[in-house]
């Protein structure tokens, strides 16, 4: 294992999954406050047909091209969900579930064709389902790093606008901030954060990396800035350690391990967290009860 760690390519892979976790953690906070946690799940599944189509078109596994394909099909998925909910009486969660499953089905259809025409599983596209960080090469790593950096930059440069957009849309309208523009920007960064993760984490579990760190961070702070930082930290740690654990075994999928690390952080936050953590909540309740009892007995002794 240690010999694996010191080869420079693996170091880059670790670095890139860490950056991926950081970017996903930050974007996850935006989704958390937009109350669209499961949208990332729908969009990551919807990315699959795009990946396969891009592969069929160029005939080789170039991450940048596949990521563009993934982004296009995820955006089509996002628009479809919006059309269905605005034009019919189907609720948003039904529309998301449907788009998720139908797009994924189409992806599997195309994947079967791609695998057949390129001889067995030679295409290596199967790694996009569960994630296989070990299959990444230097150019893949670079693509991921650059895109993750772009996402982070967009969030931090427009930090104030995001805050207004998420917490006070009425005020945003008042000061002339385009809600429509911000929504488009939001969907774009969300899609980028999802598609850069598809190779390392896979389309099925990518949503976890956007949801879990943000919810965990919520247990430690009331401030949005702090939540972004913590969520980024939790995401980065999950990405790094998940990849590390999966690298110890031969051809273990990366995605599930990253998710399990994130879930462990969530459970710790849930129990120990200083905002509404289970343990603290329990002690507060007990203290209040004791105080109430004490006051009760005092009152009784007076009368």
């Amino acid at each position: 294992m240690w010999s694996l760690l010191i080869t420079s390519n693996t170091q880059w892979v670790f670095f890139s999954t860490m950056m991926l976790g950081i970017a996903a953690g930050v974007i996850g906070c935006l989704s958390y406050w937009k109350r669209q946690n499961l949208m990332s799940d729908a969009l990551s599944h919807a990315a699959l047909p795009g990946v396969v189509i891009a592969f069929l078109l160029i005939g080789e596994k170039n991450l940048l091209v596949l990521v563009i394909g993934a982004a296009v099909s995820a955006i089509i998925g996002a628009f479809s969900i919006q059309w269905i909910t605005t034009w019919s009486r189907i609720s948003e969660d039904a529309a998301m579930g449907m788009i998720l499953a139908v797009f994924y089905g189409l992806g599997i259809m195309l994947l079967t064709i791609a695998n057949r025409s390129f001889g067995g599983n030679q295409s290596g596209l199967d790694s996009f389902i569960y994630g296989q960080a070990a299959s990444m090469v230097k150019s893949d790593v670079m693509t991921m790093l650059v895109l993750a950096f772009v996402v982070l930059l967009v969030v931090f440069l427009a930090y104030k606008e995001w805050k207004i957009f998420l917490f006070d849309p009425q005020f945003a309208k008042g000061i002339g901030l385009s809600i429509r523009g911000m929504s488009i920007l939001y969907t774009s960064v969300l899609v980028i954060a999802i598609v850069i993760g598809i190779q390392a984490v896979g389309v099925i579990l990518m949503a976890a990396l956007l949801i879990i760190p943000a919810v965990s961070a919520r247990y430690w702070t009331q401030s949005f800035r702090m939540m972004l930082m913590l969520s980024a930290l939790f995401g980065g740690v999950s990405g790094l350690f998940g990849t590390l654990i999966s690298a110890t075994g031969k051809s273990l999928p990366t995605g599930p391990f990253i998710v399990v690390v994130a879930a462990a952080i969530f459970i710790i936050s849930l129990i120990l967290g200083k905002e509404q953590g289970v343990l603290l909540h329990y002690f507060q309740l007990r203290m209040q009860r004791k105080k109430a009892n004490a006051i009760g007995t005092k009152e009784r002794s007076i009368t």
Partner: protein
Amino acid sequence: MTYTAWILLTAALVGLSCGLIGVFLILRKTAMMADAISHTVLLGIVLAFLVTKEVSGPAMLLGGILAGLITALLVQWLQSLKVQHDASMGIVFTTLFAIGVILIATSAGNAHLDVQHALMGEITFIPFHTITLPLAGDIPMATALLMIVLFVVLFFIAAFYKEWKITTFDPALAASIGIPVAAMHYLFMGLVSVTTVASFDAVGAIMVVAMLIAPAASAYLWTDKLSVMLILSGMFGVSAAFTGYVIAAWLDTSISGSMAFATGIFFTVSFIFSPKHGVIAKAVKPAV
């Protein structure tokens, strides 16, 4: 029966039972719960396999039902701790699913269960695993399982038809006249899990979501009556299964993927042409 006939029968059974259950998923606005349960059922099946060391119907069914109910309970519990509803769903199912995949990849890897199979289903292998039943003779195990599940689903829908109707459309009224709303919720989640487990072998974890949601959503655009919606949704489910098979045979590709895709076609047609709720109807006669 011939090989193709068995496959078509199995597919039709999946379409029918999923279509029926899906109606209540749509009306109760818990569609994403189907997504969550279909993922966690994998963990239940893997654990059942690790305990019994065999791929047997009853153990898998039990494991799947337990996993489904545990998912529902965990989501409810996280929600009671003030986690947003959809976030708690996202946390629970991705985590349990990840554990399932890890277990398959590390311990059950070379057995009958493999990740690929669990996720995509392999309906083409179904006719090879037969069991002998009295009266019916040799029939594929998965098909027999689906028949039993369809009967269970039909029984529960018919037996508590009025209760389903009231708890679905007016939970407050249901509670006030003494219907155990929470118990009905978990019974329903149990039914969703049973249907998912039984369909698992045929269409896999994610395509079952398409089968559960899309036919019912399409039917919802055609009618306002629960009984009609149930019949329509069942019909759409079966037709989508057949259409999917034809597409798969034509393109020589994954049958389960094509079936999921076919449910999308049915929905698109309903979405555009439905006389009351379709896009064309709305464009022609806006603002009702």
